[in-house]
């Protein structure tokens, strides 16, 4: 009897905590959303077994949930994260080559970079007293690549994304949006026309 009572009490306590912390409510990511815009990024990959991080920086364009990721330093490369696949080229003279056409991966990556986070894709936990969220992918295949993602918003213009893979390596990305106005050239950059 006592045992039953303690269980009930525990459940009521949990419910109370949940109501006060709003744990049943779906997280609102509308402020993270970048419908269109361009800016600069810096990226640092921390492999657990390497002493130093692999750093790079460049510029990006986001348009219609598609991303153009142009690494400028230390080595130039262009990456297109489109609805139908991820494409890369190391040289402007070359054609883009497909990296993956797995729609689950590239759509999720495009959504992550453009801040279009859907509660159905992730198990979301808000990190207290910060504007950060911890996202754990719900899809098994995506989980093979991302163990978890930490997503932070710093005002309207800055986003921080930390991707942790299954080997516990971290990829730390800082994106700074410089403008939401896009020129025709910017929009063309997000298309796979070459």
């Amino acid at each position, binding site marked *: 009897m006592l045992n039953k009572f303690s269980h009930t009490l525990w459940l009521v306590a949990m419910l109370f905590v949940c109501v006060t912390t709003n744990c049943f409510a779906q997280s609102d990511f509308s402020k993270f959303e970048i419908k269109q815009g361009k800016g600069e990024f810096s*990226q640092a*990959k921390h*492999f657990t*077994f*390497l*002493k*130093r991080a*692999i750093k*790079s920086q460049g510029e990006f364009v986001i348009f219609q949930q598609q991303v153009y*990721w142009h*690494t400028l330093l*230390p*080595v*130039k*490369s262009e*990456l297109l994260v489109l609805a139908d696949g991820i494409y*890369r080229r*190391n040289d402007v003279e070359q054609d883009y080559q497909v*990296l993956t*056409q*797995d729609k689950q*991966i590239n759509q999720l*990556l495009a959504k992550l970079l453009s801040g279009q986070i859907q509660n*159905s894709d992730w198990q979301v936990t808000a990190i207290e007293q910060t504007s950060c969220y911890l996202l754990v992918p719900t*899809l*098994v*295949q995506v989980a*093979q*690549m*991302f163990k978890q993602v930490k997503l932070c918003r710093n005002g309207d213009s800055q986003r921080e994304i930390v*991707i942790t*893979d*299954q*080997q516990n*390596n971290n*990829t730390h*990305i800082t994106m700074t949006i410089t403008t939401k106005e896009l020129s025709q050239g910017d929009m063309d950059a997000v298309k796979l026309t070459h």
Partner: protein
Amino acid sequence: MPLSSRTKLVVWCIQFAVLLAGLSYLWLFKSFTIVADLNQIFSVEQEPEIQLVSEQLEQQQLRQHLLLVGHQDKTTAINYALRAAESLNAIAGIAVKVKFDALPQLDSIVRDYLNYPHAFISEQYRYLLQANDSQSLFNYQFNLLNEMASPWVAATLEKDKTLALADFFNQQSLPSAKLKNHDGFLIATKNEPVGHTRYYVLVNFMSNGTGLDLNVAKKIAANVTSLKKQALTQDTGVDYLATGAAFFTASASSSAQNEMTVFGAISVFATLLLIMIIYRSALSVFCTLFVVSVSMIYGYTALRLLFTEVNVLTLVFAVTLIGIAADYSFHALSELRFSKPKVANPLHTIRSSLLLSFLTTTAGYLILVFTPLILFKQIAVFTMAGLLGALLCVLLLYPSLVVLKAKSAMQVPNFISGLHNLQQVWLNNKLAMRWQLLFIIVGLFGLTFLDNDDDPRHFYKVPDDLITQQQTISDLLAEQWDSSYLLIAGENEQQVLRQMEQLLPRLEQLQANKEITAYSSISQWLPSISMQKSNQQLLSDAVNRGDFTQLNSVLGFNLAARPLDEYQQLDFATWQNTKVAPLFTNQWLQIQHRYYSVIKLKSLQNTSSVKSLANTYTDVFFIDKVAGISEQIGQFRLQLIFIYALALTMAMAIFWLRYGLLNAFVAVTRPLIAVLVALILSTWFYGSLTVFNYVAGILILALGLDYCIFYAEHGLCKKITLTTCVSALSSLFVFAILIVSSTPAVSQFGFTVFIGVVVVFLISPRLALVSKRNI
């Protein structure tokens, strides 16, 4: 000395008893199956070795079936998949699988390759190593390292600091990547418009043994149909998508059987009604029915004797025998019912005509026996044996039916008299032979410009529902490979792998040129031992040259080359135990001491480029069954034209001996004109001609010559007008109804014969001018 009616009856009874005994023996002791797979009608001539391998691969494919059970809730989909598997398991002769081993995970795949350092390099990486351009190499390596989401780099970098292995894996695409393993269930997902996800659980089942038994196919199809019905009636929200040979076979079989039953019944009913109207005797109806039945028994016995497998399409075409066999009865009935009572043995007068008619028809069908297509052989054997049965029946059994002989000569029906008068008017106002000749020349010339369609896929119509399901499954599983493929043969595994490696750059080129969208080869995952050694040498040389200095400084490592003899290579036997290998089991085959591997192709645009690629190398074969069959049908079509010419020449020779050269020429031009008109109108109606239109031409020739013989032998008398009219009408009842068949091949055949019979009926009375008995 002529045999008495009684002796003839005894002879007929003895031969029929022997036939029935033979049929019983065949029924009991010889295996005989009805095959519904229309692809098996055609077989492509190939080297025996390649034929054996491709047939084995084809059989494997025929046995494989897929059922996807879909629902918005994953657990519900799994539960219904389990129920479906249980219900399919009740069918004897198939093995059902719903739980599978875990799909290879990234880490486990990597583990299988890590023990062979530097053995695996992508084409691009190899190119950079060979270019001796350390800066380009570093740029390439850094971009790999810097990739935002590359699980292969994360999984291999600790063990392989050259990034070559990560790059090698990056280039691969795993088969069935769309299927995810969830507690042993393989699940594909589909995003629905409203943002929901639909889960499809895979149920895989294989028929046992080789090929697919028709009964098993029917049971499988019935089972899945009942599952679908249950889902609809109970409104469970579950949907079933199924594909595999069983569903196509069952559908083709049921449609052929339904058509056979309906068409057969309508033909028989219409023919019997016609007899009743013309001959005004129930016994005449019974006699004709008996002749048709006996002819069917003859045809069926011949099929059982000469073949172990018969295609259902043969049985559909077999309906046409009703029309031809009944003709013999009509000739006899006309003589018996409409001859003057004083004639003691009226059948005697038509004996030679019947024999001549049987010989010309049989000669036409005999030619089909020598064609390469098994379907036509079966139709020819069935028809010839059936006609023999009908002839024996009429010649030996009918003389005993004196009761049928009218006590006073019956009057031919008024419409036949009217038709007879019309024929005489036509005969008096016949078109000058030069115009007919001009039509033949123009027609023959025009025939060379008509469109011919030799694609076997257009001969039969697969239900749209089956096509849609197959397409949806292909989209869900992303496994839509072409039916054509490259087959590589060799004395040992390494030889096959080396052969495939030689092809890879060419296939890459084809892919770059968008001539194919993808290809799948074992050698993408397993380079030959010699290639692995060469890769190890290349990487060691690059390390020794200092090509990795920049990468080393980024990584903070100092990569040193090991002596080459310390490197190991992954051999084929070990690879077969890797996690990736099971995904390629249907691409590898060993028959005795020969090894074979398949390179699958996707969306091949131009077969000639792959064909020429295969021709460049020994032991590389491009297998394209559809193209092979099309080519074979095209050749057969040309052969048929030659057969027409041969049949007409033979007929002309016989007619020449009996009626003189000019009359013989007139006789053979009747069916020829009919065939030309029928083919031209068929093209106008269907857009193009298929081999079935040409085969119909043989029947027109046979029936046309038949009519010509009767007009030439008996002149233009009302009795012959009556007989040919009844014969033509009964043939039309049979062939015209085929036009509405859902199988395009059957419909086209029916249309051409329909037109041909009408034309030949209208123009054959001209031969009456030949007869001395012309009235």
